[in-house]
């Protein structure tokens, strides 16, 4: 047994540097001779660029270069790409407009990049940006998703009606048939509000061209440095892949927004060459982040559930419009399709499901993955409909779920929307959550609240997600442009210490600790002797990065497989040293032992022998390191039940969360401290979506919620303490650890729990975010209507 191995709540090894101010984020790095970049952004949602006069900007003392879309084109650079091809119902490929590094001829959203000013100081770069003359001819803009298809405005000529694709999934005929026979149909129209990810560290980059080697280095805030290297080299074409090093040092949160390849990071890399190889640094302001970091969600959906008289779900029919913004960001196409509609079965046996999704361009910031990415939208839809069905049929909201759960003996379970769920036990999570929430005692609490003049409600959300992204062959057949395996290398040093190199990236998830626990357990070495290295394409094996709750389920498995290769090699070396047959060597507690004896060599001794092979098997390579790739055979399916209890002040419309219970089945848990932390964080992002957050554009395309003054991020006193428990857990089948992933669950499951509780409290459903104003109006309107009756 290893202390600090699998299952131990070990405080994180990465903490000390952050707690003492020694974290090293991109903007903390300074290089000799560095200069500063500032981007000039479009003030218009849609306009033709008539003329750019660089003269006044170049005249500002200290300004070294002004770069525009014309310069990008003159240097023959390519465009940004969307890495997943989605096809419409008729088989035609999605209609994608060009996504240039810097605007070429037209700007398409407020914040679109028009020019980059490079100067000796940040102040000079700002002054240069201010002095740059850009003449625009304003064009009509379309900013509303609801109006995008009918608007007399085409954001890109490639999609004249702004429809990028009109996609479908499921068996339409079977669904129609089931609806025709239904006892009852419940329907909802839902808004899934547009969110701004707002990782606390703004995006930043430093680009360096080395004239001596003709090599490039890009330091940046990335969740997946190898993906950045690939896209910047293969599609943008700034440097060949072997001459480009991408470094993502400490990164201050991502939540999806730092997956994508944006124009700014590419431009500073290219700009370094334009200024003779001086490093070019850039850090966005928060107000730029609001405009230019990819937003999340933004769906309009009509959904219908067909039921029999006992409340069994017969079929689900979904029609969604998804806003992609003004350009297709890196993974934007797959979020409202393959990461959304494939989850519409939820935890239920609904036999027939049909979904159609229309993705639309608008003159707004591009929309892409944000924590949960497609799965929160699916879960919110399913769990809103389920509670609506319970209300309409007069069945208890927990009972209607019990009646429809996929039973635990039905796995593996093929859903009608492509996925095969490997394992699950939904009823156990539900019952435990109800017990922790004292569901039975709720009527008394409601009555007590009523005596105080407050409206109390309780809501349930039984979410499921597909994580451990992803089996390469599956995503490849669906249009993905890359494989989604992960890689690892595990190396011993002469002195018996272990270096673990991973292609994933940690930006808050605690990989340095979790992976160390994994390796400590697998190799029987002290936790403290393991160092996890990540985030530098020059020093780590190629990996696809961190998103989709994949790092442990896919990257961790690669690490374990490398460890197993080492143990296999170690057995050969130990057999030689102990003059025993390899078959007689067992590996126990970090040592290779001759079975049934006390003769053994520790793994550190074996590693030393492999590196100093003076007495060594003649046919064996020296060295004690191994690498492995892992391509998962399936997704993992974390699932659970959240129960939220709210109280509403009818005079102000203010909603306060009185209790929140989360019971999650994450399979095997490596570090409960870390996993609970992931749940807490996800829950607050989900609560933020439900009650506080929304990106709002005015009709002309100006972002009204462009700063923390206007965009309501959850603060400490907006949210409660949580009751978080792990269900006994069903082991995931897609990896040998049985882990499922935990990073997105909270954001996926929380919104429906909160809104269902609120609906229960006030008797009417309010769209997210359920701000006090909306709640008050809903209550007031209802009371006025009642008075009129």
């Amino acid at each position, binding site marked *: 047994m290893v202390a600090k191995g699998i299952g131990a709540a070990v405080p994180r090894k990465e903490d000390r540097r952050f707690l003492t101010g020694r974290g090293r984020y991109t903007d903390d790095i300074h290089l000799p001779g560095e200069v500063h970049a500032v981007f000039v952004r479009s003030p218009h949602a849609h306009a033709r660029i008539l003329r750019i006069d660089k003269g006044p900007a170049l005249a500002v003392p200290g300004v070294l270069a002004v770069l525009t879309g014309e310069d990008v084109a003159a240097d023959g650079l390519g465009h940004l790409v969307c890495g997943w091809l989605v096809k419409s119902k008729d088989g035609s490929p999605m209609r994608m407009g060009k996504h240039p590094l810097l605007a070429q001829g037209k700007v398409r959203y407020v914040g679109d990049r028009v020019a980059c000013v490079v100067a000796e100081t940040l102040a000079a770069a700002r002054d240069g940006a201010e002095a740059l003359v850009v003449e625009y001819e304003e064009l009509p803009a379309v900013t509303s998703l609801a109006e995008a298809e009918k608007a007399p405005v085409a954001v890109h000529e490639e999609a004249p009606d702004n429809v990028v694709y009109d996609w479908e999934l499921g068996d339409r005929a079977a669904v129609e048939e089931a609806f025709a026979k239904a006892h009852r149909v419940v329907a909802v129209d839902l808004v899934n509000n547009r969110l701004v990810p707002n990782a*606390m560290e703004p995006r930043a980059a430093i680009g360096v061209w080395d004239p001596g080697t003709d090599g490039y280095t890009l330091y940046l805030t990335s969740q997946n440095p190898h993906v950045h290297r690939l896209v910047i080299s293969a599609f943008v074409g700034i440097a060949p892949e072997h001459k480009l090093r991408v470094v993502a040092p400490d990164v201050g949160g991502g939540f999806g927004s730092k997956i994508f390849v944006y124009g700014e990071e590419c431009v500073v890399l290219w700009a370094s060459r334009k200024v003779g190889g001086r490093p070019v640094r850039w850090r966005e302001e928060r107000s730029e982040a609001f405009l230019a970091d990819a937003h999340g969600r933004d769906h309009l959906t009509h959904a219908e559930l067909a039921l029999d008289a006992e409340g069994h779900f017969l079929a689900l029919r979904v029609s969604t419009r998804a806003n992609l913004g003004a350009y297709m960001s890196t993974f934007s196409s797959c979020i409202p399709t393959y990461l959304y509609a494939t989850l519409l079965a939820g935890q239920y046996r609904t036999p027939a499901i049909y979904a159609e999704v229309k993705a639309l361009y608008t003159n707004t910031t591009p929309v892409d993955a944000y924590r949960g990415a497609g799965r929160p939208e699916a879960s919110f839809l399913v769990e809103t409909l389920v509670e609506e069905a319970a209300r309409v049929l007069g069945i208890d909201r927990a009972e209607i779920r019990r009646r429809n759960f996929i039973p635990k003996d039905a796995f593996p379970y093929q859903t009608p929307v492509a996925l095969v769920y490997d394992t699950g036990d939904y009823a156990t999570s539900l019952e435990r959550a109800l017990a922790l929430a004292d569901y039975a005692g709720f009527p008394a609490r409601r009555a007590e609240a009523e005596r105080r003049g407050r409206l109390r409600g309780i809501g349930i959300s039984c979410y499921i997600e597909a994580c451990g992204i992803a089996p390469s062959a599956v995503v490849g057949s669906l249009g993905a442009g890359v494989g989604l395996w992960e890689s690892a290398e595990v190396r011993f040093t002469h002195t018996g210490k272990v270096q673990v190199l991973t292609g994933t990236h940690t930006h808050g998830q605690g990989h340095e600790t979790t992976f160390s626990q994994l390796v400590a357990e697998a190799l029987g070495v002290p936790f403290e002797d393991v160092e996890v290295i990540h985030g530098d394409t020059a020093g780590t094996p190629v990996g696809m990065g961190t998103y989709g709750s994949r790092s442990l389920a896919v990257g961790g498995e690669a690490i374990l497989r490398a460890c197993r290769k080492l143990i296999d090699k170690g057995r050969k070396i130990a057999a030689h040293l102990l003059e025993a047959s390899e078959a007689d060597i067992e590996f126990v507690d970090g040592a290779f032992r001759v079975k049934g004896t006390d003769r053994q060599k520790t793994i550190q001794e074996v590693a030393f022998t492999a590196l100093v092979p003076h007495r060594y098997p003649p046919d064996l390579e020296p060295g004690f390191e191994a690498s492995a790739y892992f391509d998962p055979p399936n997704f993992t399916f974390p699932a659970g039940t959240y129960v939220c209890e709210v109280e509403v002040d009818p005079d102000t419309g203010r909603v306060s969360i009185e209790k929140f219970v989360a019971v999650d089945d994450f399979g095997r848990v490596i570090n409960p401290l870390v996993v609970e932390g992931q749940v807490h*964080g996800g829950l607050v992002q989900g609560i933020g979506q439900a009650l506080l957050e929304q990106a709002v554009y005015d009709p002309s395309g100006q972002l009204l919620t462009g*700063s923390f003054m206007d965009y309501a991020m959850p603060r400490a006193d907006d949210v409660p303490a949580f009751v978080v428990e792990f269900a006994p857990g069903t082991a995931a089948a897609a990896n040998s650890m049985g882990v499922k992933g935990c990073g997105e669950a909270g954001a996926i499951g929380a919104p429906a729990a909160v809104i269902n509780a609120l609906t229960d409290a006030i008797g009417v459903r309010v769209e997210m975010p359920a701000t006090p104003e909306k709640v008050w109006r809903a209550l007031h309107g209802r009371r006025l209507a009642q008075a009129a009756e």
Partner: protein
Amino acid sequence: MPQVRMVVNGREVAGEVEGRTLLVEFLRERLGLTGTHVGCDTSQCGCCLVLVDGVSVKSCTTLALQCEGANVTTIEGLASDGELHPVQRAFHEHHGLQCGFCTPGMVISAVDLLSRNPDPTEAEVRSWLEGNFCRCTGYHNIVKAVLAAAAELRQQKAA
């Protein structure tokens, strides 16, 4: 350009600054104290908190010149002789940080709170931390850490 003098983390420092130079720029760019972060441009996020004469202030909206003669403590100055401050230790033990970007501001804010109110309730901690955003932790473990640090500091004082 005007001169500014102050004591930062116990060390006397001086330098020429422009009138518009912010305290956070002075700390990060001149003194290399990059533990103090800038997370917004509207004084909302609290990533840039430092103690000026024992009181937490947002260094992104404080001019360096305003701190003439002041005693400034940044996150780098909280631990003494490699020994973490009880608030730092509590954040570690209770997993009160994830990506670490808001952490210096959170820790500084908590130190200020506990110097004013050594025995805060959970609600008081949450209310006090209003000036600091964290996008990772959901605040749960931060609040837990601050309450634990408060208990430890009270115990230290009693001993």
